[in-house]
């Protein structure tokens, strides 16, 4: 649906040139929630602002549903922007307008008649759960409510894509979850494509289907969220995955279980999707003459199913352990034998 080819943005200032976005190519499918994660200064905001040309690209092309956005003259670009909603970290509502009038604003811009506006705004207010607050001013709302107004406003002209730049970064964890739930339900209800910028892996885990990891203007890794979680390739991705589940990666505590002794092994099991629900450990204990000592484990739900890891210690005959490992692998669960700790 959105195809991005060789997208680049070079900022030239007096003192230095900054390659904020560096030759990014991505395809974003209709109806998916696509996450972009990266540390501060990675170029995420620049990237998303290039998509609706709030910033002019210095290279590359963006094609949205067959239209090359990069070559659109300004008057056509304005028309096109009406079909691209955007929500912001700091909401960017007009303080001089009520909730109702804020949501009506994009409809006014699109030249929708007053009676149609009335109807549409009411519908949106119901959708985002702000019934009864129509006449409030933004200053009378909480952060979460403000973002709901922002979302309603972004959806007013029935966009085909929603751009979110750190939409939850100014909110507390609970409100963040509420807003993320709302975005997921809108994605499902309207089959709306959402591009989500964030620096929190938690957000990616909770709502995204696919993710791109950005570092210094480049996409260093992209793919299904689950794949990136289970097998992060780049250093940046690894750090983000660790941020999500610090326990799993604090392997120091495993150190004392790891020995040269051939009759005990520490292994890490990855459960993905439906595997996570299997009673694998009890199967192992029943089938083989090994002792299983559970060290630590965790499970993280994602949009594409759950992802769990489990560290266990196996005690038994060397050959039995080898057979056990084969059995586990054959059952589709990934096994990693931990020999030393970083």
């Amino acid at each position, binding site marked *: 649906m959105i195809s991005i080819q060789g997208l680049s943005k070079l900022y030239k200032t007096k003192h230095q040139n900054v390659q904020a976005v560096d030759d990014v190519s991505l395809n974003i499918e209709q109806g998916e929630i696509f996450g972009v994660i990266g540390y501060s200064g990675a170029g995420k905001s620049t990237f998303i602002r290039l998509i609706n040309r709030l910033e002019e690209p210095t290279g590359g092309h963006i094609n949205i549903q067959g239209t090359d956005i990069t070559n659109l003259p300004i008057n056509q670009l*304005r028309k096109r922007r009406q079909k691209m909603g955007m929500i912001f970290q700091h909401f960017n*509502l*007009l303080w*001089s307008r009520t909730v109702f009038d804020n949501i009506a604003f994009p409809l*006014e811009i699109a030249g929708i008649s007053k009676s149609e506006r009335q109807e549409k705004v009411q519908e949106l207010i119901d959708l985002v759960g702000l019934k009864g607050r129509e006449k409030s*001013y933004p200053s009378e709302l909480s952060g979460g409510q403000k973002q709901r107004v922002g979302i309603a406003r972004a959806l007013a002209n029935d966009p085909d894509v929603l751009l979110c730049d750190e939409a939850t970064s100014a909110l507390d964890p609970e409100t963040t979850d509420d807003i993320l739930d709302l975005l997921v339900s809108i994605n499902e209800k309207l089959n709306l494509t959402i591009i989500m910028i964030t620096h929190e892996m938690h957000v990616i885990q909770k709502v995204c289907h696919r993710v791109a990891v950005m570092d210094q203007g480049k996409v260093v890794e992209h793919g299904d969220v689950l794949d990136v979680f289970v097998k992060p390739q780049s250093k940046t991705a690894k750090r983000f995955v660790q941020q999500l589940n610090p326990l799993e990666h604090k392997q120091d505590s495993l150190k004392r279980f790891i020995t040269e002794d051939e009759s005990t092994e520490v292994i890490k099991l990855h459960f993905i999707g439906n595997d996570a629900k299997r009673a694998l450990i009890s199967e192992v204990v029943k089938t083989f003459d090994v002792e299983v000592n559970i060290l630590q484990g965790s499970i993280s739900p994602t949009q594409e199913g759950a992802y769990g890891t489990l560290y266990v210690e196996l005690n038994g005959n060397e050959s039995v352990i080898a057979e056990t490992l084969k059995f586990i692998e054959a059952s589709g669960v990934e096994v990693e034998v931990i020999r030393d700790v970083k």
Partner: protein
Amino acid sequence: MLSEWFPNVVMEDMWDATYETLYMTVISVIGTLILGILLGLLLFLSERGNLWQNRLINSVTASAVNIFRAIPFIILILLLFPLTDFLVGTLRGPKAALPALILGAAPFYARLVEIAFKEVDKGVIEAAKTMGAKTHTIIFKVLLPESMPALISGITVTAINLVSFTAMAGIIGAGGLGDLAYLKGFQRRDYDVVVASTIFIVIIVFIFQFIGDYLSKKLDKR
């Protein structure tokens, strides 16, 4: 009692002069509002990184504004004599003061307007852009409403300056309370007329201040 304290004050003259002062102030406030907002908009929009970014227009407007602001009002009136004669056809009376009043106050107000626009949240302007808003929509539906309280408190300050400008204009024959205080008071050594005119002027200033504060507070929903 009033005639005891103010033996030389003729109430009819006072009301006529008050009417002239109000006439000059109100018309020049309207003129200043229009010219000042236009100039302020031009200053703001032509600034670097804004909608009509243009160095030449920005520096020409800024210089014009600065030059007019630097000229003392009393000298501006004298300088504008030929223009006034051409526009109004006379050099005497309240009408004759209007060009100088507007040109004297508008540059000052233009700077206040520019500051008011600069204080509008950049993110809100950007949000309007992402909705596909044209420049005139951004001006009329974002910039002006979002800066309204500051525009109103700015015009209040300017209106009060204009009341004192009208008094100065009065001394060279524009009419109004300043004229009355000078001709019928000061020159005849009837100081009670000067005091009475002052009281009237102060009341007018208070009324402007009150209306301005009320409106700007009422409109501010931040």
